[in-house]
């Protein structure tokens, strides 16, 4: 089951996180820390005409934190603001392809929480 949680997709996004870095002129951004373990994520967005024109994230943490943030950036790029604002934890489970379980939820949802904070949600 360990290997099931640490699927190819999670390992891949952990090792090669997408959109990792910073944007020049973000319209929205936020930073959150998981005080329990020190994981941290910064999300930056460039919103134009109610669409996510560009997105970037940075931070450090465990594979679940990084992979789920990375998958999320892939998922929101080009989407409408309205659609992105509807995203919930279930969507993260879908992106990860697995439900991480209570001990690791904080890690899995840190990226999403940061995104919500950036969008003032």
């Amino acid at each position, binding site marked *: *089951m360990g290997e099931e949680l*640490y699927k190819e997709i999670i390992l891949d996004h952990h090792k090669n996180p997408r959109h990792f870095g910073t944007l020049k002129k973000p319209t929205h951004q936020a930073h959150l820390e998981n005080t329990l373990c020190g994981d941290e994520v910064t999300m930056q967005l460039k919103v134009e005409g109610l669409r996510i024109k560009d997105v970037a994230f940075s931070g450090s943490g*465990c594979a679940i934190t990084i992979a789920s943030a990375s998958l999320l950036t892939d998922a929101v790029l080009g989407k409408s603001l309205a659609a992105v604002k509807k995203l919930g934890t279930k969507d993260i489970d879908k992106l990860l392809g697995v439900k991480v379980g209570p001990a690791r939820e904080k890690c899995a949802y840190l990226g999403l929480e940061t995104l919500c904070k950036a969008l003032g949600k």
Partner: protein
Amino acid sequence: MIRAMVRNDFPILRRRIHGKRFAYLDSTATTQKPLSVIRAMDEFQRKYNANVHRGIYTLSEEATELYEGARKKVAQFIHANSEREIVFTRNATEAINLVAYAWGRANVHEGDNVVISVMEHHSNIVPWQMMGRELNYELRITDVDAAGLIDLRQLEQQITKRTKLVAVTGMSNVLGTMPPIANIARMAHRKGALVLVDGAQSVAHVPTDVRKLGADFLAISGHKMLGPSGIGALWAKQELLETMPPFLGGGDMIREVTLQSATWNDVPWKFEAGTPNAVGAIGLGAAVDYLQKLGMGNVHKHEQTLVAYALKKLRTLKGITIYGPLDARKKGGVIAFNVDGVHPHDLATLLDREGVAIRSGHHCAQPLLRNVFNVMATARMSFSVYTTKRDIDQCVAAIEKARRVMG
């Protein structure tokens, strides 16, 4: 010597986790319970349960006798002069808070100071911060080096005539190091300060003799020494307890109550407001019996053998960082470590799938991790009487596998 058969006394260790043999390596967080503890608690609830100290009838008298008998066992276990020196609490944290609130409020004033080390568990930091804000005293923090040794020179300078208390751990729950309490107590007493030892770990892992320890207060945790959760104790000399105002108010802690005021019961009951956790105390008493049968000297030796073995095995792995001393003789049964390229949370999840339970995170010692080692989280394996070399082998194999998965 402690034989591997001891493991059979702990029913939970027969569980299989994810279909694998269960290697429980998180005894610093809480220990598992031997059958004798489980049975003693079960028997108490089946045959003797009644409110202690209150009834005139047979059952209440028997329950009281068992509860007070448990107090006696704890007293003897740490070589206290009398059972009157043992106050039952919920846990070590409450024991420390009792001192901070009851003794602290009466004895620490504006302009005074309290000294702790950077290596403390949050439970020996936060109460002193909270009381410091209320009482306006200064909280002084003594450094610890990467080997887990307290800077005794700095400590000596920090202890002044205005120092009321030095509060240090008897054994770090991260590094396993044991500060030289007798030395520290001499320094403190010379300046008129008292000494509190957070014995949550030390009492569970090494022989404790309060007559030689040098401390004035000792906080004890039941669930970390094979007892149940919800029971702990504070040890202090009877004369000292008698000078202290009560902590919580309520039943049992009073002698007489009028509508205007109350007079206090004798110590230690003065500090035990409300119906106590009698079944927990009985469990702790049974845990003490169990440990005494093994012999705490043997327990310590057993854990040192395991630490030496685990350190040797861990160091054969590539990319392992071990925090604290590498000499097993300098520590108790706990090893904090990190594996390059594998976050401790990922490691703990992957190990769990191999039946191995380790802790990951900051171990309630954020200042130590951050200020001394500059990390936010580590993995940690820790041992108790039932730990075997096979547990360690299983863990090391699982670490190698985790690294392959994350590689």
